[in-house]
């Protein structure tokens, strides 16, 4: 037995291993370079160019599938909402929320007008300026994609240049300010939310008349910045957009859009300004439909 020749098992030489490894690495390199190229072009010209147009066409092509997916998911979402609502006394809650929303809108509108009346005379010449955002029409749009993580504070909506949207068009929900349009395609647009790091809105405290700048804070919260320590801001104060105060420097947002309420006010010795936390009226994490405010004159 020992002398007999033993058939050595045929080793698997993987004849194509080296070649397939080479192909694999080449493909990976090409794909990574392709992604980097797309990213570079997209980053350098985010609002125009062939790639921008191609992306708009692709987005239009994908929209029917997105709408279909949303419709398929709708019963499950409704069921979830129903169960969730039962646990929190849905009917009463819903009724009260509608009531609060309606009253808040009325109150904000009334107070905005009242607060404005004192300055109407002063601002009259500004309001009559060509660039003053006097009239807006609402373009209703459905939200087609949502912020998918902490990096993205943008949503996509199904209205675009075809319906008059432009870059910097203000966008609101039924509750209050949502953000502004930062990229426009023919049939869709990208809306950057108030919670984005690059979002700044000049705001006015309706109760005290204090002005400041709404920007994002820690953990997707909002803060009212640039408010001097000497002035008074109280918890519960209502904030609205400050609008254009000087026709030479038109604001992106018209006056009086509800933004939110002051949720806390803090003072630190080392800080230059008050630390004012703001609770936005609009539920930025759950938007189904929004309205873009398209200027009808001079915009």
């Amino acid at each position, binding site marked *: 037995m020992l002398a007999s020749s033993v058939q050595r098992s045929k080793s698997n030489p*993987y004849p194509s291993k080296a070649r397939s490894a080479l192909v*694999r690495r080449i493909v990976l390199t090409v794909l990574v370079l392709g992604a980097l190229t797309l990213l570079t072009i997209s980053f350098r010209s985010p609002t125009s160019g062939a*790639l921008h147009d191609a992306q708009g066409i692709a987005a239009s092509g994908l929209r029917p599938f997105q709408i279909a997916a949303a419709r398929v998911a709708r019963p499950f979402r409704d069921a979830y909402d129903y169960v969730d609502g039962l646990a929190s006394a849905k009917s009463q809650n819903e009724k009260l929320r509608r009531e609060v929303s309606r009253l808040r809108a009325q109150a904000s509108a009334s107070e905005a007008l009242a607060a404005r009346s004192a300055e109407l005379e002063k601002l009259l010449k500004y309001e009559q300026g060509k660039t003053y955002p006097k009239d807006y029409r609402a373009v209703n749009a459905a939200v087609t994609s*949502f912020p998918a993580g*902490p990096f993205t504070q943008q949503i996509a909506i199904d209205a675009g240049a075809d319906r008059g949207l432009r870059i910097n068009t203000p966008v609101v929900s039924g509750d209050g300010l949502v953000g502004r349009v930062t*990229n426009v395609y023919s049939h869709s647009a990208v809306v950057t939310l108030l919670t984005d790091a690059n979002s700044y809105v000049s705001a006015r405290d309706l109760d005290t008349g204090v002005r400041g700048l709404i920007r994002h804070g820690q953990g997707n919260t909002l803060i009212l910045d640039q408010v001097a320590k000497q002035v008074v801001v109280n918890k519960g104060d209502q904030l609205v957009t400050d609008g254009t105060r000087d026709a030479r420097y038109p604001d992106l947002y018209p006056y009086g859009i509800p933004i939110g309420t002051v949720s806390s006010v803090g003072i630190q010795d080392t800080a230059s300004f008050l630390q004012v936390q703001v609770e936005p009226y609009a539920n930025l994490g759950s938007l189904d439909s929004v309205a873009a405010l398209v200027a009808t004159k001079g915009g």
Partner: protein
Amino acid sequence: MSLLDGGKAAVLLFVAAIAQVSIFGQARVLGAVPDLLLVTLVAVALLRGSLAGAVGGFYAGLLVDSASLGELGLTSLVLTVSGYWIGRYGETTGRDRAHAPFLSVAVVTVLYGFGLLVVHFVLGESAPAGAVVRSLAPAIAMNLVLTGPVYALVRRLLRPENRDELSAEVQLLG
């Protein structure tokens, strides 16, 4: 990977990408979003290798960036690398191991989050590391919940290939 398998994988990733953008993007729990697309890509990469993982990641990333009107190429870049890496794991040490999909999803969820963080940071955009760290645990938990059914579905559509067809650069003894 046959043409039929490629078609199946493309359809799977297409459906996952659309569902991710249109449905799962809204399901935010403790700051995290369940990532059906990432889980599906992991399953495809484990079952069909690094090449399919990389190509699938690139394709899925393009779909997501197009549908969400995001920066084209950003998601593709991270998903391509993720798909390739998981594919290599599947081709070598991860093959035939029951825990491979779960381990891969957990690891890739972390790497994907930090990969996006790095890309955003390099681009000079907002890159909140604290938010990423805080959302990691719920993101991993939700993705692991999805892993079982998604992997089973993908495995049913893309039957595991013959072992000999896979590369074996790392062989286990014994």
